[in-house]
């Protein structure tokens, strides 16, 4: 298997690959990485055979947990997450859609309190494939095509 040079470029930490190019910075936002100490490097508009264009994020000295990885399931469902130790892939994590989603997406109902008062949304995942969610406030259901990523 051909390994990308960029993946092995961090010593310890997490590499998130195969992010839809335009979602790269949203992934950083969603994971709330602003406070961490290690180097974070992100690249977008990389060529990808599978996706056309993709993004990669490398986070030094931070090992994402499965729960953290699941937060990006809606915005980057096909992302591959590698935990790196001493330049080697120690563990691969699969992105999977959690039971509930906080923030990350926006309720499609303009008369929903989350939109009127601009508070972060909460959603129950009713179905995973294709994804269907219910706003915990206004109780409207959203299909995949109605889901707006923040």
């Amino acid at each position, binding site marked *: 298997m051909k390994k990308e040079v960029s993946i092995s470029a961090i010593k310890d930490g997490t590499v998130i690959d195969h992010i839809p190019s335009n979602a790269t910075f949203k992934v950083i936002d969603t994971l709330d990485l602003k406070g961490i100490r290690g180097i974070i490097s992100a690249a977008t508009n990389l060529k990808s055979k599978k996706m056309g264009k993709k993004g990669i994020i490398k986070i030094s000295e931070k090992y994402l947990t499965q729960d953290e990885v699941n937060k990006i399931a809606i915005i980057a469902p096909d992302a591959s997450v590698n935990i790196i130790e001493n330049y080697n892939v120690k563990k691969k994590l699969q992105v999977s859609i959690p039971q509930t989603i906080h923030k990350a997406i926006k*309720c499609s109902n303009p008369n929903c*309190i*989350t939109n009127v*008062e601009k508070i972060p949304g909460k959603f129950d995942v009713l179905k995973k494939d294709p994804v269907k969610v219910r706003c915990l*406030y206004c*109780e409207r*259901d959203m299909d995949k095509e109605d889901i707006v990523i923040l």
Partner: protein
Amino acid sequence: MDFKNKDVISINDFSKEDLLHILKVARTMEGRRDTLLKGKILATLFFEPSTRTRLSFASAMEGLGGKVLGFDSAAASSFEKGETIWDTAKMVEKYCDVIVLRNPIEGSARLVAEASSKPVINAGDGANQHPTQTLLDLYTIEKVKHKLDNLHIGILGDLKYGRTVHSLTTALSHFKPVLYFIAPPALQMPQTYLDELEKKGIKFIIESNLMKVSKKLDILYVTRIQKERFPDPIEYEKYKGFYKLDTSLLSHIKKDLKIMHPLPRVDEIDRSLDETEHAVYFEQAANGIPIRKALLALVLGKAT
């Protein structure tokens, strides 16, 4: 089952056992006037008018010896501009023991419940939920039919936009009914509710002509159908006759059919039906009192 400090936000939060328990407590509240809730204060926050609902809650609270404070829409409009509903809830919870909220923004009741450490009862959040209406509907059905299970229930009117009929459908799905959705095609029950019924194995019939199914019904639940909802006025003319009930219906129904309506009505039920034994809509409205007494007592920990 402990309802103390629980919020009453959505009918979807209640199991069948929860619903039956509330109805059971409501039966003990019939005609009750005492001091069960003495020393307790209810705050009614009505950001839009609903005089009947507000009076019903106030009557329930005062009938059990509690006190009521609050505002209606007129006062709400002079409420400090720009104050969020979160902040309002944070302030009001200090003044009272229980909050009843009506606000046209969907999901507002859930947010107030998150903000408040005191229990919150939703009295209508826009097109979303009005759980005390649904509970009093169930209570009425049980009272007039002496059971809830296996009934043939027709629901007529604007089924597409009607909050009341959506919540009622969800609640009834616990009780193995056969449901008849009677509405013109443009105002029929949304697919998402039909999907849920299918998943639960509930039998339902989609019909636009009441007369085709009227003989089968134990309960006919009528709601208002608004001309403005019709995409085409010609279609309204075609259907409006079906949705105005009068005594000509009487030869097409079971002897013990009961007709319900959440009120207020416009002209969908003719007054000539009021004096028949089929009409239970005024009794239904009165059933709001024992249901609201029961909920107030339960969430305040004064009934179990």
